[in-house]
């Protein structure tokens, strides 16, 4: 099963270009917004006005961080720093930003990937069970999906927490470990699952009317077999291509889930950094999220090629 080289390379190259553009755009915007912040960054680094730093200390920091250099020179070193993942030192943690992120990124990734898996399982089950069915059953499926997709994560999380942890005691209110992961992952997975299911359903219903389905049925294949073996494969394509984007949205949703469930992670770290106005940390986390988003998009592109028969040189898996 080898893929068509040139098409893939082209797509990958375009994605990488887009990724660099995204990172540069976010970086540029943040850099110039930072210049608008009232107050001297050197004083912020020295612990704020309350620390009463001496003028010589302020001067030293100003020089050390290069705040006295021309704006464009600062911008240039900021950009080159980003390329090395060097985001500087957190004002509040007095620790390199990358180190702080590395310490917290594990639980967040565990949460987002679990949530993505949940979203996929939910959307496939919903599609197989209800898509293309006539009458109430199909409408119910569509309605539940739409409602799930529209649920704000903060409220879903709170309701899950109240019902399953506080009232029923099925899951711990807080907990690392697998049991503690279930509710936060559902909080993120259910809305994404609803969205993916909507997309998959549309595609599924289109594909159900395709000739290859008719021929498979004519060959005596069962309804469940047709749905699971043939149609789903085609219908999953747009969903797969959305998963990269979905992962990006999950990482930002993790901010909410981590606060609701008081979990450790970069979302929690980000909220703390925003509250404390610790800009290097905010920039660093945003960047890492952007990176995750970019990498995920590249990967989904590859997965897309693997599943899409048209992009493969060996056609003929179906029909």
């Amino acid at each position, binding site marked *: 099963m080898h893929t068509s080289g040139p098409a893939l390379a082209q797509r990958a190259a375009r994605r990488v270009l887009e990724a660099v553009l995204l990172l540069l755009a976010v970086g540029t915007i943040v850099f110039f917004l930072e210049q608008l912040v009232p107050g001297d960054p050197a004083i912020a680094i020295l612990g*704020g006005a*309350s620390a*009463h730093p001496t003028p010589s200390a302020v001067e030293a920091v100003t020089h050390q961080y290069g705040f006295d250099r021309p704006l464009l020179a600062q911008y240039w070193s900021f950009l080159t720093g980003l390329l090395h993942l060097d985001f500087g030192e957190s*004002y509040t943690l007095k620790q390199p930003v990358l180190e702080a992120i590395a310490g917290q990124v594990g639980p967040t990734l565990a949460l987002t990937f679990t949530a993505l898996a949940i979203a996929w399982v939910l959307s496939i089950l919903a599609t197989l069970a209800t898509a293309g069915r006539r009458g109430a059953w199909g409408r119910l499926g569509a309605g539940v999906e739409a409602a799930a997709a529209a649920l704000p994560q903060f409220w879903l999380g709170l309701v899950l927490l109240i019902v399953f942890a506080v009232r029923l005691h099925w899951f711990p209110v*807080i*907990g690392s470990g697998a049991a503690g992961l279930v509710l936060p992952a559902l909080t993120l997975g259910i809305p994404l699952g609803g969205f993916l299911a909507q997309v998959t359903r549309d595609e599924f219903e289109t594909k159900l009317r395709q000739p290859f389905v008719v021929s498979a049925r004519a060959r005596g294949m069962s309804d469940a077999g047709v749905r699971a073996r043939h149609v789903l494969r085609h219908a999953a394509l747009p969903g797969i291509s959305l998963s990269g984007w979905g992962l990006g949205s999950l990482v930002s949703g993790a901010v909410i889930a981590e606060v609701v469930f*008081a979990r450790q992670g970069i979302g929690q770290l980000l909220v703390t950094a925003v*509250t*404390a106005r610790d800009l290097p940390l905010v920039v660093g986390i945003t960047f890492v999220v952007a990176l995750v988003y970019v990498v995920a998009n590249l990967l989904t592109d590859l997965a897309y090629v693997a599943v899409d028969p048209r992009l493969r040189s060996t056609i003929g898996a179906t029909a």
Partner: protein
Amino acid sequence: MRRLLLVALSAVLLTSCAARETTTARGAGPVRGGSITYAADREPTCLDPHNNGDMPQTYVARQYLDSLVSEEKGGKIVPWLASGWTISPDGRTYDFRLKPGVRFTDGTPLDAAAVVANFDQILDPKTQSSTDLLYLKSYYDKATALSSEVVRISLKRPYSPLLSALSQAFFGIESPRAMARGLQQNCESPVGTGPFKVVKWHHERDVELVRNDAYHSAPANAKHQGPAYLEHVTWKFLKDNTTRYGALASGEADVIFNVPPEDEQTAKADPSITLQSFVHSGSPFSLDLNAASPIFADQRVRQAFIHASDAKEAVQSAYAGVFPYEGNNISSGTPFYDPRYHEPFPYDPAAAARLLDEAGWTGRDAEGYRTKNGRPLTVRLPYKGDGAETPPADVTLLEDIQAMERKAGIKVELQALDSASADAVWGDAKAYELLGNYWNSPTPAVMYIKFSKATLDVANGQNTAFAWDPELDDTLLRAAATTDPAQQKQLYSSAQHLLTAKAWSLPLYPIQTRLAVSDRLHDVWIEVSEGEPVLSDAYLTS
């Protein structure tokens, strides 16, 4: 096989009898070794408690620093790093004899020169000391090494609370070699003679502590001498109330600091948890009224503000009855506390209205707030928006007081700020009218620290009311100068009387150290100078 059977059998017995005996395991005596996790609410900004001087620093510092002396319940001072001391008849010279053969965990010997270096560091502006500085500034002259084992502290004027002050972990003695590395490095990993040593501070997460195997300088009031039982302590920061309590319930933490008041009942009912609490002496959590602001410069307006809030009711409601109300400027556990000033300005809206009318705040704006010459009666109350710094119950308390003042026509503007902005408010007389503050201290001399010209002159914002009074200063200095209890009682009482009349502060509740300890951990105790949790006597049972 036999063992398996035994386990099964005992399990049956346990469940059938529903036995919940947990103390029987203690018969075996302390066990050596093991790791525990202690979950704190707030993270210190520096592990060297000489710098700044906030509570989280002393709680953790108690685990790796020893002080010269220790305080017992009732105020008696007992030997620690100092095996004995003499005080000159004029109360101005203290000679401490140090325990022989003690070394810091970096190998440096503890001698008189090391102690001198500690006092020098505390007074060095570069250390940015706030708490220690204010305890010493008005009294301290110099420290000298009389011999390698005897250190002399000379004072400018007599200071009877000195030993109490020195018993706090704020005055923990650190290795001069470690201090010489500079403040920044010393903040990360200070070195003491204590039962544990700092391995690494993982910011935002924990401080890793490991046993000092050579420890033999426990205070005279410790439960045992020699090295700690526990081998390893993870001093974790879980600022979210729910998380911290949940960590104890799930077994992730063995001790948690500051049981959320909302969970007090659940914790009490849980047989696998024991609760310990200690009511701090010193100045209670109060809203200090900025007397340098145009609005609160008028004593009548200050009194009206205090009369208009039903502080007692608000504290009881917000803290679910767990925290007691305290209306005096010092808490009930402080030596020479005078109960006559427990509730000096009872809730009295009529009195508040009368005082405000007298002060000329007679107009009303569209929202019903009082005005004077067209200016609304608005007072700003900044606080840290971070839930660890201002727990939810405190926010509730502030909102309740805000609602009460609203009825009196006073508009309280709550300003939730990020930590840097909130810190910047301190010392800026134009930035606030009200500011929440407390000063845990083993001595009533804390009144001098909070409200004196000397503190105002240090200009580090610790005189939050920007207020002082010559008579009060004089009274408190005279109280510090005498060792006669009858005289002290009389002087400290009149200080409480003066402070109450000035209405510079709306006291609310005394700060507490509240620990919840898992039943597998024993002999955790709270010392009394600063309510510091002590883990050096603690041991695990499996």
